[in-house]
């Protein structure tokens, strides 16, 4: 087994991580990748392959722990979407500042109706929008 052969198979499994739902076959796929990685002759390549399989497992763990936890409220889902839109890199500095400032106001309103345990985590995101708006100000003048 050489690294390139492993990489082809790894990339197929990696693509599955982006599916809407993680496929049932994933544990078997990971086990197969582990066997392939162990059969790589070159020690440095084998180590790299082991690391790549470990990362797939970490992403699966991220997914499982997110499923185990309490889902975000609608307010948190909306706040994150607003934060990402308000952080968008497109447009002139003035447009971007206006977008970030509007995002701050919108996230403030969302926080008002968010569950108490999520409220401060939502408001915390406004700090980065303010830093962004202030970072852009010299370019907008």
């Amino acid at each position, binding site marked *: 087994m050489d690294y390139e052969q492993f990489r082809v198979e790894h990339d197929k499994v990696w693509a599955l991580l982006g599916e809407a739902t993680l496929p049932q076959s994933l544990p078997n796929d990971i086990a197969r990748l582990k066997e392939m990685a162990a059969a790589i002759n070159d020690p440095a390549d084998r180590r790299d392959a082991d690391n790549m399989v470990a990362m797939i497992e*970490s992403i699966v763990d991220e*997914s499982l722990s997110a499923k185990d936890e309490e889902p975000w409220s609608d307010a948190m889902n909306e706040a994150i979407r607003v934060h990402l839109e308000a952080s968008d890199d497109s447009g002139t500095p003035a447009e971007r500042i206006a977008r970030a400032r509007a995002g701050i106001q919108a996230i403030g309103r969302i926080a008002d109706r968010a569950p108490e*345990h999520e409220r401060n*985590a939502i408001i915390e995101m406004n700090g980065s929008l303010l830093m962004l708006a202030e970072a852009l100000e010299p370019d907008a003048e």
Partner: protein
Amino acid sequence: MKVTTYRELMAEQARAAVRVSGAHHSSWNGKVGATDPNEKIRGSVGWDHTINYSDELVTVPLKDMFENSRVYNQDPATLRSYREAVKTVHHENTHALAAEGTEHVDGQAAYQNSAERALEEGITEVHSYDNLNEYIDELGLEEIAPGIKSAEAQPSYDHYTPAARRFTEGIGRNAGVEPSEVVRRLAVVNPAEKFRTAAEVLYENSDLPGKIPEQEREAAIGRIEAAMKPSFSDLENLKTEPDKEKMRRQSAIAGARGAQAGVDEVKALSREWSQPAPETRVERGVATEQDRSNGQAPQESAPQQTADGAQPQELPPDLAAAVHASRSGSEPLSSASRLSEDQMGSRRSGTDSSPERSPEIQR
């Protein structure tokens, strides 16, 4: 230093963050302001290095915490408000950490870019959240608010932190450095230096230093850095993900892809420098010898922009004096410690451009 008043906490906030992280210094200018009450913002670091807090959401709970000093069995909601306020203080002070010869403002242009901004916020949140109890211990706040260390406080930036965690995990695993140590090294540099620091960790712990002459080092690290950034720009696309599981998974994938892109670039560089053309081999050999004979240190010099030296203007005189004393270095901190080479996980020794090695805390 243990603090017993709100004023002492404000005076000590940056030095405690420096001690917890091992950063070279904090860029904080000693001023504490208030965020605009018309905007719901818990805290922010201005590009002039003033730290601002919300009166309602941060300052009031912190003052209450000291007014209720040493009161036991406070209700969970009160303790949570204290912990969340201290978390905000630690988050903002983590933003202000900087390497020798650099300041937070040196990252102002980089912060305009989605990739650098996502990594800055992801790393700052992971470091400040994971080390919050160390920060509380450093300030002695468990004695002020018994129970604060075990109170709940929600993490924030959940769309960036999975990327930051998997990115540092991937870098760390490949470099043989603990992921928490990679987080720390990225936390103590400004937004413009985080990807570069990650690239340096990969480079220094690979076979590249033995293959690539010193004068090519910066270009090689630049290639690794450039390879890692695009996946973080992709985090903007998370807004189409419908829920927590998918958003966190996609964020994790982006961070892992960034690390893998860096590792792949290291491998590509290693191949390129393994089989040079004969004439190139001679040139590189000569160049390396010249470096040695000239004693050159061809590492890129760090930005030299310095803070404006602004003195505290909004603090009472005793506090201003304390801040001045700390910035002038007249108050060494016994708890600051230098990490060993083992702890740093780097092969490097001797001349060292790593910005966070010095235990000095404030210039």
